[in-house]
Each structure stands twice: as C-alpha cells, then as structure tokens.
C-alpha cells in the first residue's frame, strides 16, 4: 500500500486555506459580537446553527450553489470552523477583567488599540484553543470532500468503501487519524503553554499586589 503523500499534502493544504479564512473571519465576527451588543445573538446564533447542520447536508447544499471542487469544500470547512473561533474570541474578550480595559482606556488607548494591544493578546490562549478545535474538526470533515469532487485523503477511503478494500481505506484513514491526533496533541501543548504563561503573569501580578499590601 503506497503512502499517498500527494493526497496528504492536498488534504493539509485544503485545511490550511480553510483555517486561514476561518481564523480571520471568526475573530472579526467574535469582535463584532463583542463590540455590537445587537449583533451578539445573530452572530453566535448563526455560527451555532451552521455547526448543527449535518456536514453532508451542508456540503451537498453548497455544491448545488458553488459546484464541484475544492472551492466548495473550503467554503464548507470555513463555515464549520467558525463556531469554535467566534465563540472563543467572544468569551475570551468579554471574560477579561474590566479593570484591565479601564486601565488601558485610562492610559489613553483608542478602542482599536485596546483591542489589539490588550484584549486580543490576553484572550489569545482561548482563541487558540478555538482554532485547535477548528483544525482538528476540519481535518476530519475534509474527508467528505471526495463526495463533492474535492481532493484529499477522502478519495482512497471512499474508493475503499465502494470496493470493500480495507487496505485502500486504511491508506487514507491512517494518515487522516494521525494528522488529527498530531495536530490535537501539538496544539494542545501550545495551548497549555499559552495558558500557563498567562497564568504565571497573573500570579506574579497578584504576588506583587500582596507584597505591597503587607508592606
């Protein structure tokens, strides 16, 4: 059974492109939901609904509109990846302690500056965890791309099921599962480091406060 590196690269490329789009769109929507209270329900509701729609249903509906091919798959993946990123961006920012925001404003930062210099960096560990979920989910769902004429590791799996050839299924399935596990593991490690760093910073701040108090 040949290892289909070409298909793996195809698969990864599709997921990477989709993730890039969903990160940009997802963070933007998350910020919009936070900035504009009236958009909160619409944006979070929309990404929640999209996630609920069965993937095959969503992809085939998209195919009717956009036709066969990688483009349709990428659109589908972007839509799927939105929810974790939007939600985590939104909760990450709105969960920040108000005093940080006030301090930043008090130093004379504009709304954009507060966002870029304070809110997004502090919310980043949580946003990153959303991106991780998006990537791992996308790797799995991209397999379905074969059904709407897109490339990637779905092809050998689908052919294998049709011909009842387990070797062929495995040649697609093993790389997909490995990729998902590797990304899950690696990104969890990074996420852990990010959160730990953030926590350490907070801890340090707290101890200085306490020392000042006791002094």
């Amino acid at each position: 059974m040949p290892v289909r590196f070409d298909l793996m690269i195809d698969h990864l490329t599709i997921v990477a492109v989709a993730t890039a789009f969903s990160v940009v769109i997802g963070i933007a929507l998350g910020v919009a939901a936070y900035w504009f209270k009236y958009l909160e329900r619409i944006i979070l509701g929309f990404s929640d609904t999209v996630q609920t729609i069965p993937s095959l249903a969503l992809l085939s509906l998209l195919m009717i509109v956009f036709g066969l091919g990688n483009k349709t798959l990428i659109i589908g993946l972007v839509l799927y990846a939105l929810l974790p990123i939007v939600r985590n961006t939104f909760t990450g920012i709105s969960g920040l302690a108000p005093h940080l925001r006030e301090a930043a404003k008090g130093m004379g930062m504009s709304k954009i500056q507060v966002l870029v210099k304070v809110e997004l960096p502090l919310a980043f560990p949580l946003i990153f965890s959303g991106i991780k979920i998006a990537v791992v989910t996308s790797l799995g769902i991209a397999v379905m791309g074969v059904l709407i004429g897109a490339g990637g590791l779905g092809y050998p799996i689908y052919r294998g099921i049709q011909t009842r050839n387990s070797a062929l299924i495995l040649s697609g399935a093993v790389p997909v599962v490995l990729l998902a596990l590797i990304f899950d593991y690696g990104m969890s490690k990074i996420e852990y480091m990010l959160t730990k760093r953030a926590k350490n910073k907070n801890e340090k701040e707290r101890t200085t406060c306490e020392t000042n108090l006791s002094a």
Partner: protein
Amino acid sequence: MTFMAKNSGLIINETLNHMRLVGISTLFGLMISVPLGILLSRRRRAAKYVLALVGTVQTIPGLVLLGFAMIVFGIGSKPAIVVLTLYAILPALRNTYTGITEVDPGCIESAKGIGMSNIQTLLKVELPLALPSIVGGLRMSVIYIISWATLAGLVGAGGLGDLIWTGLATYENNFILTGAILAAVMALASGALIGLLQNIMTPRGLKVRR
C-alpha cells in the same frame, strides 16, 4: 412539488429510518455513557485516560469508522448503529463526568456529614445537580449522530443520506435539497427540543437568583 408528490413515500420512509438510527444509537450511547460517567467520577485518575481514549476515537472521521464497521459487520443497519453509538458516547460521557465532578464539594460533604449513604448522595444530590450538564451532553450527542447518520446510506443502512447520495450520483438537485434540508431541520429541531428539555430539567433552585 411534483417531485415531492412522486417521492413522498421514499422521503417519509427515509426520514423515519434516519430517526430510528438516531434514536437507537442515542439510547445505546446513553446507556453506556451515563453509568460510565458516574463510575469515572468515582475513579478520577482512571477518568483522565478513559476520556482521552474516547476523545481519540472521536477524532476518527465518520466515513473511516463506517468503512471499517462495514467490513466487520457487513452491509445494513448494524455497522451504522455501532458507529453512531460510539459517536454518541463522548459528549454524554464527558458531560456526565464533569457535571458530577463540578457539584459543589460543600454540598457533598454536607450530604455525607448529615448521614446520606453514597447511593443517596448520588441520587438526591449529585445527579439532580448534574442533570442539566448531562442533558447538554445528550444534545451534542444527538446533533453529532444526526449528522453522521447521513453517511449511513453508504453502508446500506438507509436514512436521509440515501436521498443525498442518490442526488449526488444522478445530479438530481431535488434529491440533494430534500435530503439535506430535512437532515438540517431534524438536527436543528432536536437541538432546540433538547435545549428546552435541558431548561425544564434544570432544578428551579439553580435558576432563581436573589
């Protein structure tokens, strides 16, 4: 409309089929995950490994699992139900576990301290307080299963996926639209319905505030 009229029997049949697949595997999933979740809440060290293992299974794409299940169990409902049950387990299991482990330790200490046995503590305190979380897990399980059940058509288990497959194979958009929209509606409706259930099952004392 003529399409609908012509194929109404098929559509209704596959919708019911889909519901049957989802219903059965949800039931199996709950029967496994709730007791297992309770057990894990008593064995916290083992819980970490079990949850990690089940989480790993969850990352395997549905298409792959389905393919293997077909090779092992043959064509029909059986491989589909096995795979869907597996998918149903994780969210319900994780939520049962976290729901119970997140019950205020003060409540559990009081329960023990005033003389509740372990089983009374579980039934009167832990489970009622974990119920909203468990139902939340159930909601996620059902939504997942409705989604993956659309693939069941591939292994000859029928369901709404069959309509979509037919459409994809014959470039008949009406089939695709019908199957996809029905599946989406089913997922959204179940999500909303179980969300409502979750609200009802949340003890009133957890909702009211001073």
